């Protein structure tokens, strides 16, 4: 571990695919014990960024250290202390649940005896011990994810990398994964998480960056980002008329005009809401707390990423 407590230090890391700048000068720092999020739409470069962090994808430019070690030249030493949950469930379908953990442990040179102890412990922690002898294809999506998580912990990592850990899960399974990650966090494990779920990022991350088209747009704590970029409240008006638009422009409110919908951001939600609701709208107008999703959509735009 570095003296300054940084687990991951990346400076201006860079990677292209063909002509596309997949990761375009990303700098970030993950401190020991925190949960750091990389939030971004599909194709933003999240997966490529984390793959560079665990040495799967070589850098084309920049400077990258994990645990104070250069990833390119010390990959094995770095990865030995990292647990990775890749986006796809790449569990071994030819093996049972328990064997998946035992075989994976051999890749880290963990002795059979130690692997057995840890595997049993992890299966208990992930509520999978009753399925030890099941084959992977027999598991539900949520169970598979928990097994991937258990597998990532088999080497008792100092850094856990989760690449979209709950994509495709039902709400129950998603909450279960979140609880497990929170528990690991409370034990002091450093976690790096990519996601495009705002709820997930707001709940788990101490700090996060929003990544789009390979570049970091903002960085900060979720609540601070919301306050800074959106404010405390959002007033949503459906089918706004020209009077309202003129009023908003006149008052200089921070807002977004989506045509059929108008979003007004601000600190003094209630007074503004009353003015708008009574002066300009009789209905089709609602006020709510601002959230990370407002920041996300405001910064990354509303176009589909396809």
């Amino acid at each position, binding site marked *: 571990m570095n003296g300054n407590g940084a687990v991951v230090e990346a400076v201006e890391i860079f990677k292209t695919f063909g002509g596309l700048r997949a990761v375009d000068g990303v700098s970030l720092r993950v401190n020991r014990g925190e949960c750091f999020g990389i939030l971004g739409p599909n194709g933003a470069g999240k997966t490529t960024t984390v793959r560079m962090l665990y040495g799967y994808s070589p850098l084309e430019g920049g400077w990258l250290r994990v645990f104070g070690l250069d990833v390119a030249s010390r990959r094995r030493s770095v990865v030995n202390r990292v647990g990775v949950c890749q986006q796809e469930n*790449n569990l071994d379908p030819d093996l049972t649940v328990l064997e998946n953990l035992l075989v994976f442990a051999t890749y880290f040179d963990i002795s059979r005896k130690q692997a057995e102890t840890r595997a049993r412990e992890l299966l208990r922690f992930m509520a999978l011990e009753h399925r030890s002898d099941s084959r992977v294809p027999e598991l539900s999506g949520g169970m598979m994810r928990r097994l991937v998580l258990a597998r990532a912990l088999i080497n008792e990592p100092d850094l856990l990398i989760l690449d979209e850990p709950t994509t495709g899960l039902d709400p129950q399974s998603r909450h279960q994964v979140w609880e497990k990650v929170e528990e690991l966090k409370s034990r002091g494990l450093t976690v790096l998480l990519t996601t495009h779920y705002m709820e997930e990022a707001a709940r788990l991350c101490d700090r996060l960056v929003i990544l789009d088209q390979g570049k970091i747009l903002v960085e900060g704590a979720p609540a601070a980002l919301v306050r800074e970029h959106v404010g405390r409240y959002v007033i949503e008006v459906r089918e706004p008329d020209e009077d309202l638009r003129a009023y908003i422009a006149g008052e200089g409110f921070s807002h977004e005009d989506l045509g059929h919908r108008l979003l007004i951001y601000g600190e003094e939600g209630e007074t503004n809401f009353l003015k708008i609701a009574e002066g300009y709208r009789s209905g089709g107008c609602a006020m709510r707390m601002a959230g990370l999703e407002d920041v996300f959509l405001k910064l990354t735009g509303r176009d589909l990423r396809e």
Partner: protein
Amino acid sequence: MKLLPGGAISYRFRRVWARNFTVYRKTWKISFIPPLLEPLFYLVAFGAGLGSLVGSVGYNGAEVSYVRYIAPALIAVAIMFNAFFENTYASFVRMYYQKTFDAMMATPLSLEDVIAGEIAWGATKSLIASVLMMAVLTPFGLIHYPHGLWIPVLACLGGLAFGSIGMWFTGMMPNIEVFNLPIFLFVTPMFLFSGTFFPLENLPAWAAGVAQLFPLTHLVGPVRALCFGRFSSAVFWDLAYMVLFTAVFFPLAIARMRRRLVR
């Protein structure tokens, strides 16, 4: 061992081998059946059926029965098939559908460890097949001992050669259907024209020349020499060719897979 810039094979390749062995042990009873039955089918078909038409074949200046002639070729063909199919279809499934390699490469295993482990496993499949076939052929007196005891060693070398080129194809295949191409254009001609079922001297000169390029030709030669217990200097060149073939395609396979997987 440093083979390519940035890549290295470590002792850890054995972990990949062991993973495959763990899976194999679960189904060994089924996996054992083809190498045991296949030579019996061929012996009946060629020995009782075709053999009576063919009579005898000239080998090393002597006339030998057709069954004796093709028995070593059956072993050589099994060595080729086992490694080639393991490192094409089976490796492709692990790489492409099961994403097993992706998971391995997020551990201290390197890409080189993974590919070397896969090819070593392919060679092991060849070794197992050769031993099983010897067990079937020996009671018929078709293998000369103690020379025949060297066949499993040849199986390892042949397995590495055919596994390496199989893996090289695997690195290029856009999808699993395309394997039909190397099988039809490479494996099938080799199977038929490598001195397996008839002597190469029966071919026109140009075809016999082409057959000299086939690695299977240079595996059938030594296996047949061991089965008969008769050697000539040709065996030395056969072995040299197999070693060279492996030395070329093993690094090529790794380079291909690196291009495919490391992005």
